[in-house]
């Protein structure tokens, strides 16, 4: 199994080298031959990660690590193409993330299930982390949402880590309470209502629509797996909708997002809150969404080619802000075209398929719930950001797993990967026995 993983990692290594080489060829004047060392370094890093999995989780699924490598490679290549300086920082974060990934595997290789004992600790830490950005001094508001904490120049989005911890907590809690939850007595609805209220509160306080949707989506999916009661999902969705409408009514920021989503283009000038005067909406609030759609459209079927996309005006000003974090998908869509991003999305689908397979093979409830929750969260997060960019849902700033620039995101996703590999390792080992 590990040999298969190694084979795929080598394939990914070759792909990475090709990616960096094509960026280098297209942008010789901006980037140097050092770009090729990125590919070499990247390959070495994943070989190291592979050696750790060989030792710690020999029976784990062999496809997940190469997929994560491929996704981070695509992200790093595109970040390198957009802003070479950011790529260096991202590479360091990937090293940190892989190190934490390795540490997690080594630490929990015997039995990760003892985490279940600490489920309440995880739960409260998650809530604490979520509320961290609201604190004065270290809290930071970016693009209208208060999601960041900063220590000096070091910025971190605690929500990313909270997501993993929340899933561990929910898996532990639901494994314990699934029978009573399924009976549907009113007093057992308590936790559901508490979580719902918390999600709405977090939404209100951080004004983070995407995060709220993500946490609540994960919660409902896991609740469904635990109780097999589709009615809970329906009621939960209904409550979420009521809550969302309520938030929409009282929060101008959320109203703005919805207006942008429904009517990004206007024919006549409307009031522009950014300048305080009249402007076409595509030149005002919705310009980021609209420019990103232009970027996607420009990719057409085959894309412009890596390094050949247009991301700056003739004077050199960036056309789309936050291109390498929230909007990296529209950069990829322009340069790789429909073929490229469809392939990218298929890779995400394979990751989800493997993740769900792990949940199916897992023997105990905690493992099943955790694997299903982690995998569903991964898929839902991808849907929320890309769906927002594609105008399927209102746009909210959230990272694209493994691909976006951002330290907290990369670290969190590697921990998610570590979790899936641990569960998979145990399930396969027991199946072989």
């Amino acid at each position, binding site marked *: 199994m590990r040999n298969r993983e190694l084979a795929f990692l080598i394939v990914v290594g070759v792909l990475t080298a090709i990616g960096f080489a094509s960026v280098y060829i*297209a*942008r010789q004047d*901006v980037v140097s031959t050092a770009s090729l060392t990125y590919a070499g370094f990247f390959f070495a890093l994943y070989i190291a990660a592979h050696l750790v999995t060989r030792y710690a989780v020999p029976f784990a699924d062999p496809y997940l690590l190469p997929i994560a490598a491929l996704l981070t490679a695509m992200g790093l290549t595109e970040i390198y193409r957009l802003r070479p300086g950011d790529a260096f920082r991202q590479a360091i974060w990937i090293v940190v993330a892989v190190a934490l990934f390795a540490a997690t595997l080594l630490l929990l290789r015997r039995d990760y299930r003892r985490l279940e004992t600490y489920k309440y600790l995880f739960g409260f830490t998650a809530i604490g982390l979520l509320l961290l950005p609201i604190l004065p001094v270290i809290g930071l508001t970016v693009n209208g949402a208060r999601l960041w904490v900063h220590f000096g120049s070091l910025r971190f989005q605690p929500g990313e880590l909270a997501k993993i911890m929340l899933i561990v907590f929910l898996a532990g809690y639901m494994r314990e309470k699934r029978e009573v939850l399924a009976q549907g007595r009113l007093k057992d609805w308590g936790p559901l209502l508490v979580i719902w209220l918390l999600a709405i509160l977090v939404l209100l306080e951080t004004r983070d629509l995407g995060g709220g949707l993500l946490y609540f989506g994960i919660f409902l*999916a896991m609740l*469904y*797996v*635990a109780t*097999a009661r589709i009615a809970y999902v329906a009621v939960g969705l209904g409550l979420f909708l009521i809550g969302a409408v309520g938030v929409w009514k009282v929060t101008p920021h959320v109203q703005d997002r919805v207006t942008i989503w429904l009517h990004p283009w206007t024919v006549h000038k409307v009031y522009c809150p950014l300048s305080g005067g009249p402007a076409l909406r*595509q*030149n005002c609030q919705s*310009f980021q969404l*609209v*420019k990103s*759609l*232009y*970027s*996607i*459209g*420009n990719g*057409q*079927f085959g894309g412009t*080619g890596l*390094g*050949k996309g*247009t*991301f*700056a*005006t*003739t*004077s*050199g000003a*960036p*056309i789309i802000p936050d291109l390498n974090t929230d909007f990296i998908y529209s950069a990829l*869509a*322009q340069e790789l*075209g*429909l073929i490229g991003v*469809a392939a990218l*999305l298929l890779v*995400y*689908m394979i990751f*989800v*398929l493997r993740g*769900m397979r792990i*949940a*199916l093979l897992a023997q105990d*409830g905690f493992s*099943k719930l955790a694997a*299903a929750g982690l*995998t*569903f969260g991964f*898929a*839902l997060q*991808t*849907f929320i950001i*890309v*769906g927002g960019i*594609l*105008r*399927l849902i209102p746009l909210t700033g959230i990272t694209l797993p493994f691909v976006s620039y951002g330290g907290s995101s990369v670290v969190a996703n590697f921990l998610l990967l570590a979790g899936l590999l641990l569960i998979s390792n145990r399930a396969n080992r027991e199946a072989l026995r």
Partner: protein
Amino acid sequence: MNKQVTHIGIAALVLLAALIVGTTYWQTWANAGLANRQDNEIQLVAQFTIKRGKVYASDGRTLLATNVTKKVGGQTLYFRRYPTGPLFSDVVGYSTQSRNRTGLEQSYNDFLTGSNANLDTVFRSTLDKLKGTTVTGNDLVLTIRPEAQALALRLLRGKCGAVVALDPRTGRVLVMATSPTYNPNLVEKRFGLATRTNLPCGAPLLNRATAGKYPPGSTFKMVTAAAALDTGRFTPDSPFYDPGYCEEYGKRVRNAGNPEAPETFGNVNLSTGFEHSINSVFCNVGKTLGAGVVLDYAKRFGFYSLPPLETPEGERVASGLYDRGRLFDPKHPDTQVDPGRLAFGQERLAVTPLQMAMVAATIGNHGATMRPQLIERVISPSGKTITHLKPDQLGQPIKRQTAEELTRMMQLVVTGGTGTAAQIPGISVAGKTGTAEVGRGNIHTTWFAAFAPANAPRVAIAVVVENQLNGFGGTISAPIAKQVMEALLR
């Protein structure tokens, strides 16, 4: 539990599949709509990634428009530079980011960007795009002679007006100069400076040669005389008596010159009347023919339709009667138009220099009008000629004999009439002066239309100069026409 895991697995996959569908929508169905959005900066930038074709003057060496490269965000962008500055700006126009395009840069954009439909170009551009190399446009070679163009612009310096010279046999535009003009290199960043002029007439961006509307004055007598001879109602020898004025609607319309002592010629014929530009003679011709016939001949020469040329439609205007700023084509010309004043070029006539050059060229070319053309050749980046100029006869407004009789009358104008200043040693010139009152004292718009050599012309010209105090067609415009023709015939 496994059933539920399968369910949420399917739900997750459906969500991701929706993303593929969404992406497909924007990149295929909605793509064209997005590309056409005005605020789509990517498309704007994309235009500047194309290496536009160069523009040359007729010698194939004088570079009128070329590119300078600039690296922006890792992309090589091409911006226009016009080495001859203001010399060709009204014909070539400009291609910029902030002001879009004018002139041939606008109307020949497809050729210059390699997006024209010629099979050869389509093949090459597609290959360039697939290879990811820079798309290179086709080069243009104009018919304009750079040295004569420079001379014409120098002669117009400090004046407002235009010079248009054509090859009567083929319709090639040899000179198209307009004053004041502008420096196209300043349009992008210093538009205010580009459009500033010290001349009182202003409007340096206007191509006066094709869009300037001027009262034609006596140059219109070429059209009236053509109608008079071609209808067979008059011959060059038809007798007239000139009392110094002409009766119209019971009022006396005096000949040109000092109103207190009008020139009086007495017994003359049509030819003498043309030679000395006697208004009363043409007034009577007009009354005999009627305004309808004169306007009909004007239309045959191309009046009332946009003069055909490769520049954008918006940069050309039709000649004819104008009423309150709009082209006026009378339904009942014999009651709506004063035939006497029309015949000697007054009434509400407004003409372009290009139109008057076409009239002169038609007379010189034995009555056949050739389509005026600016583009000699379009050359692909590999040096292959994609299209080249094909002379095109637009029509035959007058009979060959009429043209020959008119030519003799126009020669008399230069040898002994109002246009003696246009004489060129060793070459017979045929011409017609024009001095149009603009309604303010002795300020005139002065004209000269001519062709040479008279029997086998190689050049036809129209020169107009605005707002000349005590200036006449024979004294202001004829000397300019002479020098430009000399340069072209050399």
